[in-house]
């Protein structure tokens, strides 16, 4: 209810979506570095695959030589060779 309200207000006031929404913000720099903000928790991780749960579904990175450079409560910095990024499950509320 509150989410929806804030989203509508955000839209009305022309806020950028990362300010108004609760979904993850993903910044990919080249293929080597990925910064994920606003994730919920780590589901699974290995050197080839990292799966994170977010409010908008499960976020899945595949690639190789993944290292979690820094892991903070709201921010995750990944280093490695990125191949693909997919969302699984979840739906827009």
């Amino acid at each position, binding site marked *: 209810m509150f989410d929806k309200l804030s989203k509508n207000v955000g839209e009305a006031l022309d806020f950028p979506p990362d300010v108004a929404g609760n979904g993850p913000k993903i910044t990919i720099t080249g293929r080597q570095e990925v910064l994920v903000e606003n994730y919920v928790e780590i*589901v699974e*991780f290995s*050197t080839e695959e990292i799966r994170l749960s977010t409010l908008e579904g499960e976020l899945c990175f595949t690639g190789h030589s993944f*290292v979690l450079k*820094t*892991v903070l*409560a709201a921010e995750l910095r990944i280093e490695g060779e990125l191949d693909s990024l997919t969302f699984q499950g979840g739906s827009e509320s």
Partner: protein
Amino acid sequence: MLVDFGPFWHGRVIFAARGDQLARFVNEGIREGIVFYKTQKSERGLKAQVKIADFKKLRRAARLTHTRVHILAKYGWPFIALRWWRRKTLIAGILLIGITLAVLSQMVLSIEVKGNKVIPTEQLLQSADNLGLKTWVWQKNVDTRKIAEALVEEFPDVAWVGIDNQGTQININVKEKIRPIVQTERGNLVASKTGIIQELMVIQGTPLVHEGETVKAGQVLIEAPVNLDNPSAQPKPGVVSKPNPTLPHAIPAAKGFARARVWYSAEGKVPLTEDKIEESGRSAKGWGIKIGNRVIMVTTPESPFPQVTKEVKIYAYTFGRNWHLPVEILSIDYKELETVHLERTKAEAQQIAEKEAKAELQSRISPGASIIEETVRVLASSGEVERVRVETETYEDLAVYPNP
């Protein structure tokens, strides 16, 4: 390159975690507020780094997820400091040595006196001690210039004193005054060479040797008369004559001759075979250009002879006083050298040896001496070298005044 100093300064614990729920372990850790760095998964589990303070918080997460954690390495300053703290006696010792050295290097530890011949070192050291220059005092408290000046004033025989310090050692460099030498031998006639006195003629003074006596070089032959003044003259009563220690009473000189026989001998050595390097007379010329230190030869770049002496002439062109061409002309004169193999007969070698020996004698015999006898003796030779000894007997006047 900038090195990230933060991890080193705060310290990091590198650990490995093993278990089935590693992702959950990380999530629980995050919930505790732990920040994971360089988290990496391998076949044996998880490897990550956390701050020192965060490491204890891992315990709860590990217990919840049945994960076993063990430390792989400890990195950073806090661990180094801890190691040092355990060896505090050693550190304290090193510090103590450092401080002691620093303190001692500021002190005067030894004093050396150099250059004194007449004034005893102990006396100079004692005076320096009284003036404040002694061992175990601070170097900065010693005013070397003042002390040097005071020492010059204190010792009349000192011309100059310089004090310098080499680390903890202080050197007192002394230059003594050169006083006129009081000659005791002044006016005496002494023998210039060793010989046998044949004829002694005393005009003034006392003879100390007699004819037929062998005298050594430097021996007093005729002593100057002690006093020629009127012996009956008495000093006036009440007048004390002051003797001057530096300028002795004018002593009249001894006069006379002492003719003696003097022997000289010299030896000449000449080998029968000899290799000499001589100029052959052949020569070659070459010229080139010199630019800076580089030489470019235009003709005859290499010496045409195997053995050579080089004569290099450089022609530089200058304009006025300060301008000169950077290019100079260079000419080289190569003069060939050759080894001359000399072979002499015994007679030739002996002749040359005799000549050499005589030339040497000639330079030693005093001018004006009359030669009585000259003998040339061929010494036993070893086969390779011919040795000739020339002995000369002269008749000459030996009596001379000693050099002042």
